[in-house]
């Protein structure tokens, strides 16, 4: 049975696109057939994060308007046999698509894919409404900051009002050094405030910047904290019970090792 998952946050810049790219890559590594859809019409980004920007011919709006067949617009990620991207249109705006058209699109993809991931634009307007229209479940991404959490709370309210039953939280960009000295809200603090179930926490990791620079998502790379955190999230999406990564221990160990190299 296939599932349509929307990745959303309300606030911009908290890591929706990075999360979509990594969760999608991770699910593909776990042998699921996955398609990623960039729903941010006019501001497409998922293609560059995935490193597939040079292969775009047709886009989401072309499919919706019938300018091409679905198969022609889907970009196959050559690194994984079962991972595809449906890029957004760069020269149009969000009014080019309606929620009804998005539902039709996701229903068509359900027949071929196990997981359909929708990268939602920031905000709560038309683009958000389009992205959540066909979704069965939602991953709400937030960082441990007041502005991001406030927006996440608003988004959760809207998702509930739209009868999206399964809503899970991802706390992104955690800095355990700041949490331990009390200068950043902890995973527990954020989960308590937002009152939804946590599906994973991702540390603030330099490797994310490096992987985005290279256009190679790092999910599953166990030599990185973030890569490990993302693959754990993927296992939990599949319903497996995976204990929460101990960000604290490894992080301090990593920073010590990194510190050694910096001095020399």
């Amino acid at each position, binding site marked *: 049975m296939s599932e349509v998952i929307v990745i959303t946050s309300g606030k911009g810049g908290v890591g929706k696109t990075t999360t979509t790219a990594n969760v999608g890559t991770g699910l593909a590594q776990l042998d699921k057939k996955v398609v990623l859809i960039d729903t941010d019409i006019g501001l497409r980004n998922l293609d560059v994060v995935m490193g597939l920007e040079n292969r775009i011919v047709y886009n989401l709006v072309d499919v919706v308007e019938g300018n091409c067949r679905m198969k022609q617009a889907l970009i196959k990620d050559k690194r994984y046999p079962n991972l595809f991207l449906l890029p957004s249109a760069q020269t149009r705006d969000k009014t080019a698509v309606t929620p009804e058209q998005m539902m039709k699109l996701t229903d068509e993809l359900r027949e071929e894919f196990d997981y359909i991931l929708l990268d939602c634009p920031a905000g709560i307007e038309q683009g958000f409404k389009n992205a959540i229209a066909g979704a069965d479940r939602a991953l709400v991404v937030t960082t441990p*900051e*007041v502005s991001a959490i406030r927006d996440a709370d608003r988004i959760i*309210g809207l998702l509930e009002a739209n009868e999206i039953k399964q809503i899970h939280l991802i706390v992104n960009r955690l800095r355990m050094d*700041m*949490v331990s000295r009390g*200068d950043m*809200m902890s995973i527990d*603090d954020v989960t308590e*405030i937002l009152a939804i179930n946590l599906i994973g926490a991702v540390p603030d990791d330099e490797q994310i910047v490096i992987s985005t620079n290279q256009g190679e998502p790092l999910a599953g790379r166990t030599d990185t904290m973030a890569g490990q955190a993302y693959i754990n999230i993927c296992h939990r999406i599949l319903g497996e019970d995976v204990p929460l990564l101990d960000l604290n221990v490894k992080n301090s160990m990593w920073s010590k090792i990194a510190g050694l190299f910096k001095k020399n």
Partner: protein
Amino acid sequence: MGLMDFFKKKNSGDIAKDRLKLLLISDRANCSPDVMEMIKNDIIQVISKYMEIDAEGLDIQITQTESEGNNGTVPALYANIPIKDMHHTPGKANA
């Protein structure tokens, strides 16, 4: 900085959490802290007609609760009103 200041100083993480908790109550209820204060004062006035209550300890909050009829959650107003004396003569406040 005195020793007492050192102990009183709150972590910025805790400050953030406290601010958010208050903020989200009014966000979720779509009503401002001012309105909440007015509701609180009115509750004190009404209840005080019948019993003596601890106005300082009174706490009201808007939260989510499972709705009984249709599925889903609905907002609910929770009031925690500590009673000082139950045997307050009815109507005395009006006298």
